[in-house]
């Protein structure tokens, strides 16, 4: 399927902080293009008289009482961290 003319893959990749190879760009452009075509199809549905909604189910006020429960141990919380120091996650410096 052809890519969308208004799909700027470099822009999207930049927002996502992803550095893509040319090959990856071609692949993702194709995949995202498919998604946009699907959305385009949805757009063709006649929604005259349908109120805009934030959710498909007409359900409101789903909440829980403010009672604090247990969380994860530091050990468990940091298990996926690629690098850690002083019980914090170490990431590349994000300010200059």
């Amino acid at each position: 399927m052809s890519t969308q003319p208004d799909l700027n893959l470099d822009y999207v990749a930049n927002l996502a902080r992803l550095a893509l190879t040319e090959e990856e760009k071609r692949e993702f452009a194709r995949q995202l293009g498919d998604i946009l075509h699907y959305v385009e199809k949805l757009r063709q549905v006649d929604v005259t008289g349908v109120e805009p909604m934030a959710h498909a189910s007409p359900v409101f006020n789903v909440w829980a009482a403010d009672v604090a429960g247990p969380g994860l141990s530091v050990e468990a919380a940091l298990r996926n961290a690629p690098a850690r120091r002083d019980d914090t996650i170490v990431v590349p410096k994000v300010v200059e």
Partner: protein
Amino acid sequence: MKFEAVIGLEVHVQLATASKMFTRVAAGYGEPANTLTDPVVLALPGALPVLNKAALDQIIKAGLILGCSIAPVCKWDRKNYFYPDSPKNYQLSQYDQPICLGGAVEIELPGPARNVMGEHKKIPLTRIHLEEDVGKLTHGAQDTLVDYNRAGTPLMEIVSEPALASADEAYAFLTSLRLALVHGGISDCDMEKGQMRCDANISIRPVGATRLGTKVELKNLNSISFVRDGIAHEIRRQLAVAAAGGTITQETRDYDGQTGTSQSLRSKEMAHDYRYFPDPDLMPVRVDEAWLAALRATIPEHHFDRQRRFMADYQLPYTITSVLVPDRGLADYFEAAARLGAAPQAAANWIANDLRRELAAAKLPLAASKLHPAHIAGLVSLVESGVISSSIAKEVFVAMFQSGEPPAAIVDRLGLRQSTDTGELEKWVSAAIAANPKAVAEFKAGNEKALNPIKGAVMKASAGKANPQRVDELARKLIG
């Protein structure tokens, strides 16, 4: 050309809840790093958010206090951005349907003197919405450290209209907003702990112009005084640029309160594009009249209304009300004493001066005081009915602050009752007259003030127990 400043504030306030906004792990400050997380906070696959009912109550209450209209329905949106402070790569927030719209913050500007109430005005608000706080980043020389304890804490963002005209107005805005929220139990608003944070949008324009000038966003204003200083500094900077014929660049600047300087934060080439869309994991919230009525019933009297009432109903001077009213506990304490029949002005003086001084010296919070409103009421009535003099009352105050013993009991135990026994008084007064012939002669020659050393001698001889009015009468009679 004459310029005027236009300032709008964005204030972030953490809500005082036990658990986080969208999950039930504890919320808190000062805990060891990464000990307040769970799968929702860390955005582990499959974790789903659930709203915190108390946070909704709190923000609606804040909206009611500030006179906002509460949206009958509101929803949740994802604000998408990639940054390590947000593990989900989006922040849950409210975009086009905030829960509170409009409203205003009543402010008081500095008066012509410390003891005169300043001008009041209302600064309109645009909106208040609910979102989640993000993690804390600590930037080092080589890398950045991430602590997710703060991530997911309920956070409301209060946005003012660009309607403030000076640094003083911004200071007054934050002072009043903070009081309203603390009194309402909505947040502790401790800026040092990051519970209240402020960004300011500042621009200048020729006086009379209706279009806003190019705005500069000032960040990192972490105390109310720094907000005032930072805004004053930025207005001066913009005026200097304009005076030199330059143009203001739209940018974000970081204000350093310690050095009183600001610097431009490197602007990213790309404008922010958060690509908001409704969050599919959270259901919208519908607010009905019953819910609003229940919350309305919990709202305390607004601090400025209370201050005006204290001045009108109790005839208290402005200065005393400015001490009592900002501290809700102290103002409640005063009203309790007044309800027990204490003369309001005397009670207010004891509380605003002596009680606060003793509490500060003992490093005690009001709640831990052994001295209750009934003690104050009792002491005031002992002075009013002439049982003790006001100087003896000071002594009784200190004693009852330390022991919590009722004032009348202290007066009896220490024999401090003012003497009105004419025989005893006459003895003291006669002795004082005999000992001060010079004063007597001067008084007889028409010098009213000459009576003072005689009265002083009597007070000294009686250890303060002689009734001053009776002493005055007797001295005149005996000399005459």
